[in-house]
């Protein structure tokens, strides 16, 4: 187990800088997800932590000790690759023991560790098979097993679930979380899938264009996104965003208006009238139908996605052009062409500065 500190971590290929001075602290035993769209630098960052990619500027320290110049094996990390990177010509047993043999560990100790990992991951039956005789999920478990046997200080996962089918992905998600509880090792997990990050991590780092957009607990990011990028990235379906304006302030409250939402009053201390804003409303933060009786806001329904236990309505608010998605718990009898009253739930209206994209608060 180790804590990790990154100070001004920078990666540049020639003149092209892809990671722009990242500062980040990861506590001992924490499960951290690095999440962001393709090309945001999350995998590069993970590979820098692993020692597979050199560090252009800045520092990475494990437990206070700078590891910039250490080889991957000296850092005491284990890594699970997206492609699994199993040794194709070796049996599962050999795949698991290969790294331990490099350490000139005693045979008995190697066997014990392999047996332990095999039991933990239910690989006992496959120990003498080669990777090509295994299913995707089994290969994935071997890759995790190979990481476990080293008893690493830090586990690194590089999009480990992206080659699995949906059902297996959910299952493996659970297995990795269980593993983290069981081992208590620091884990860093790279994914582009915000659902994986939300369900597994204790802390999420949202990256975009080689910079950190926000660091926080999953629910914090959902409820208090620091800027438009995080607001749009975290949460599925994504937050509805409307161009609006502050039309007036009274006491500690501001009145904001947009063609879609009409006028809303939100508690906001410091806002100049006339300021351009983005108004954010999550699909799940609407009251619909009978619940919203009397609301002046009407949704023209264009499309209904009914999943039985929940319903998604795609439509237009107040006759505006922008598509709005509304999420309703349970089944809702609605059809395209319907006109339903909706009301944004109090306390769930997000405001962002239109120019900078930074959050002005939530009300």
């Amino acid at each position, binding site marked *: 187990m180790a804590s990790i500190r990154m100070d001004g971590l920078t990666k540049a290929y020639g003149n092209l800088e892809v990671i722009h001075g990242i500062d980040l602290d990861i506590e001992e035993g924490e499960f951290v997800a690095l999440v962001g769209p393709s090309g945001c630098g999350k995998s590069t960052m993970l590979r820098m932590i692993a020692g597979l990619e050199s560090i252009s500027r800045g520092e990475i320290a494990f437990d206070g000790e700078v590891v910039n110049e250490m080889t991957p094996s*000296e850092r005491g990390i284990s890594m699970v*690759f997206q*492609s699994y990177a199993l*040794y194709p010509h070796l049996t599962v047993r050999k795949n698991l023991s290969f*790294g331990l043999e*490099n*350490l000139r560990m005693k045979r008995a100790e190697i066997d014990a560790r392999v047996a332990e990992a095999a039991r933990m991951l239910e690989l006992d039956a496959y120990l003498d098979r080669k990777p090509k005789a295994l299913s995707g999920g089994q290969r994935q478990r071997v890759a995790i097993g*190979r990481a476990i046997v080293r008893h690493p200080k830090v586990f690194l996962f590089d999009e480990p679930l992206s080659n699995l089918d949906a059902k297996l992905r959910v299952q493996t998600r659970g297995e990795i979380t269980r593993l983290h509880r069981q081992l208590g090792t620091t884990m860093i997990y790279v994914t582009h899938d915000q659902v994986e990050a939300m369900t597994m991590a204790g802390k999420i780092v949202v990256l975009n264009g080689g910079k950190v957009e926000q660091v926080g607990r999953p629910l914090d990011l959902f409820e208090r996104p620091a800027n438009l990028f995080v607001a749009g990235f975290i949460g599925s379906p994504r937050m509805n965003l409307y161009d609006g304006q502050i039309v007036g302030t009274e006491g500690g409250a501001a009145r904001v208006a947009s063609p879609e939402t009409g006028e809303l009053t939100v508690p906001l201390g410091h806002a100049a009238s006339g300021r351009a804003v983005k108004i954010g409303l999550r699909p799940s933060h609407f009251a619909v139908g009978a619940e919203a009786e009397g609301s002046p806001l009407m949704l023209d329904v264009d499309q209904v996605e009914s999943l039985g236990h929940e319903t998604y309505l795609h439509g237009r608010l107040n006759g505006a052009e922008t598509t709005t998605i509304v999420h309703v718990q349970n089944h809702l009898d609605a059809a395209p062409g319907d006109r339903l009253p909706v009301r944004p739930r109090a306390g769930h209206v997000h405001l962002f500065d239109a120019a900078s994209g930074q959050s002005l608060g939530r009300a």
Partner: protein
Amino acid sequence: MAATDDGYVRPAREAAVSSGDRGDRLLEAAMGVVEWPFTRLQRLIGLRRMPWVFVLPNMALFTIFVFIPVLLAIGYAFTGGTELLLWNRPFVGFENFSRLLSCGSYLDPATCELDLFWTAVFNTTWYTAFNATGTLVVSLVTALVLNRLTRGKAFFRAIFFYPVLLSPVVVALVWKWFLARNGLLNAVFADMMGERTIFLLEVLWSRFWVVYVSIWFHMGFYTLIILAGLQAIPRDIYEAALIDGTSRWRQFWRLTLPLLMPNLLVVLVLLLIRSVQVFDEAWVLTDGGGPGTANTFVVQFIYETAFATDVRLYGLASAASVLMGLALLVLTLVQLWLGKKAEN
């Protein structure tokens, strides 16, 4: 692809057309011209018989130039005399084979009835051993180095491959000039060595150069096969090995070499077959197998017995060919068997 009612399988060419690219349209037009007769033919004979139409041209050439000659050679091997046409030649059973194989001691060619054949067999054996091993090692090392280059990989690959494009006779003549008494090598090293060495007239030197020239000539081809194998090994396996703390040496022996084995096996099979068949470049380089019979190989013996002497012993030459073919067959089978075993 979509099958229509008549069972004709139509290629999906809509995509090519819609891209509107000029090259694509040209290709499309060309395909149309080629396609039409095949479409008609397929309607006529049915889809199931079409594969035969496609393999027929090659099968015909193969039959005329390989299959029938092989059968003829086997036939000639059991006949005697000097007549050219098979039906004019007397059947002699295994006489040619027994002449080839009759030896006082198989370890001493001088005790054999056809001592030149056995000298050639011995020469071919050592040549094969040195040439196959040498080329394999040199190609492997070259491929490993090329694979590590970050810059100029294509350039050096082309450089090493270039000799393969030359004619064997040209290669032999160039090297002959290089190695001659008044050649470049002697000119450069004359002062250093004090005297001029006539490389191709000394038994050991000439054998060394025959193998050396062959390695120089052919290594580019094998390097390419091995390089392709190296590039097919996923990079992330080496990254996993790095994280596992694997030394370079162990990476080579435990990862690279086993993963390269299928390619190395192909290279080895090709090398052995080609080494046993050595003839043209060595023949020109050594002026017909000299000095003496130091570089006389089996194919040269076959060629000279059948075509280059006054008494043309087609039967004996054919019998030697058949024996060589059998030896190659055994070698190949053993290697395929080893390959299968390694795979499991």
